[in-house]
């Protein structure tokens, strides 16, 4: 996984609440069985006219000022709805590394960390301020190491991420390898104990 330490980028404002994963990645593209190259389907209905080709000028990510933004600033409950990790893969493929919002859908939030994306939770007031700055084309500095967002005028917004998630993202650790290496024996011990305690769970094995 690509590590995330800090990035500086312009930020695309999507000042809406409840942007669900169906909006981020429409269901009909879920038939694809690979996680690469999905950026072209990101926000498909919002980005394109009915012909699927002509860009809608009012969608921020289509505007020259925000093209290539690595940061999105959005409203509450971003990524709610379906568990589809395709939403995160599509954002990542689009070059997005960080989403700032006042809250997130729980599954989307955790999917981000498995793909080198940083979801940052801020207060509604802070988010409103960042939306204004993003809309003005200001660049933001998101620093996971120090857990702070720095604005162009020297302002600092602190945020917090769980210890283990922060470590994993900073180092680009592979979670499955980490669990296998550090917890392999504990897992085996748990299974032994559970097999004695609740043997019906192992009846078919």
């Amino acid at each position: 996984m690509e590590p995330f330490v800090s990035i500086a980028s312009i930020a695309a404002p999507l000042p809406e609440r409840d942007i669900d994963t169906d909006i981020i990645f429409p269901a009909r593209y879920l038939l694809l069985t690979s996680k690469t190259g999905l950026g072209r389907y990101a926000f498909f209905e919002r980005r394109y006219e009915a012909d699927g080709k002509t860009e809608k000028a009012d969608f921020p990510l289509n505007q020259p000022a925000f093209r290539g933004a690595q940061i999105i600033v959005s409203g509450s409950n971003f990524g709610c709805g379906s568990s589809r990790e395709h939403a995160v893969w599509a954002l990542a493929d689009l070059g997005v590394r960080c989403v700032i919002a006042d809250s997130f859908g729980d599954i989307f939030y955790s999917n981000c960390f498995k793909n080198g994306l940083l979801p940052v939770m801020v207060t509604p007031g802070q988010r409103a301020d960042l939306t204004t700055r993003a809309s003005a084309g200001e660049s933001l500095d998101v620093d996971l190491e120090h857990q702070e967002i720095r604005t162009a005028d020297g302002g600092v917004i602190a945020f917090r991420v769980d210890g283990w998630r922060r470590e994993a993202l900073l180092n680009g650790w592979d979670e499955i390898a980490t669990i296998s290496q550090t917890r392999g024996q504990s897992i085996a011990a748990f299974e032994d104990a559970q097999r004695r305690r609740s043997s019906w769970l192992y009846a078919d094995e």
Partner: protein
Amino acid sequence: MSAPAKTLYDKLWDDHVVADEGDGVCLLYIDRQILHEVSSPVAFAGLEARGASVRRPKAQLATVDHAIPTKDRDKPVADPLARSQIALLENNATAHGITLYGSRSPRQGIVHVVGPEQGFTQPGMTLVCGDSHTATHGAFGTLAFGVGTSEIECVLATQTLRQSRSRNMALRATGTLGRGISAKDLAMAAVGRIGAGGGSGYAIEYMGAAISAMSMAARMTLCNMTIEAGSRIGMVAPDETTFAFLEGRPFAPKGPLWDEAVAYWRTLPSDTRARFDRVLEIDAGALAPQVTWGARPDLVLPVTGRTPHPDNAASAPERESLLKSLAYMGLTPDTALQDISIDYAFIGSCTNSRLEDLRAAAEIVAGKRVAKHVTALVVPGSSTIKRQAEAEGLDLIFRQAGFEWRDAGCSLCVAMNNDRLAPGQRSASTSNRNFEGRQGPGARTHLMSPMMVAAAAIAGHIVDVREIG
């Protein structure tokens, strides 16, 4: 000293901790996983890329539901992408020794219907699935939640997940559901009360007289929609209804193991003095049939209501959101919900496709005709349910009324197969999500109960089921 009082959620969590990782995070043991064709391919590819094998093939169950067409099941799948996605799941399951209900299996069906139906879902377990409606299984007193594809791979490889502990919320439903009111109406009213994101970070336990009186199908409907309030976990304590449902099902414990299991399951309900971080109460007896009017599940009203005035919104962003929803839905403020005409009626999805749902809908449509301008579909949740319904003659009742009777799958809940609305078309739907584009780009969805959809199909517009014979 007595042990501290615990909730059902606390008990299940504590029983599955492999290691405490600090910061409220634990490595949790996952007893069972259900797989489907859409969220699993990248997980299997990842597993192969790291040269790992499936740690416990018998702890997994695979079925096809999302992409599979709901007619012409005996022919090859027409869409090449869907065909290869389904084949990929079938190959992966076979290669790793995982039980598979493939496209021709008599047990095939929607993940959240098939798991309980086969007794794969049991109280006291942790269970995950790469699908956000996994909370459905919480109806059994199972700690069940939806996961992403990376987490599917993690469970395949290690049978564990790192998880943050949720806070406890209790939703107490008092009273008795009235005539024409179902678990779906309670679920929708609960989502409206909690709000689209209000349940985030909580595990919700549904309790109270109205819940105890519910069948397992009704409890599943209720738990199913928990994610629409932002919570991954919705549960009901296991009781005699739960045990009676499970006994004798294919995966249920047998003989002395059954007695041992039941003895353990009886210890699971929340202790009487257990503390909940948040408690809500709903009078189930006072509920009217619920209908969503907007493009979010929490934009819900009694069927007697009218679309809101954005000017009455509590905040500026809420006003924006209401305006957007009205525009997307093609509705104007202050429209009586019962004046809204529909083009489609869909009875199906993991929320409402069980035998009991089909019976309730059939009772409404029996001897009547679907309105001329309405396309109406019944899609049973599993092939098993389809056979059971046919044995009771329900298919005939639906067909004679002008409904199409389809094969089991997700169908118009997610519009991934070829069942899809055209832009601007409007449906009355028993599914769980009315998001923009959910039933096809530009499609407009009104969520409601099976009885309400049946009534709307006949009337051709949204109607109060309590007012028809």
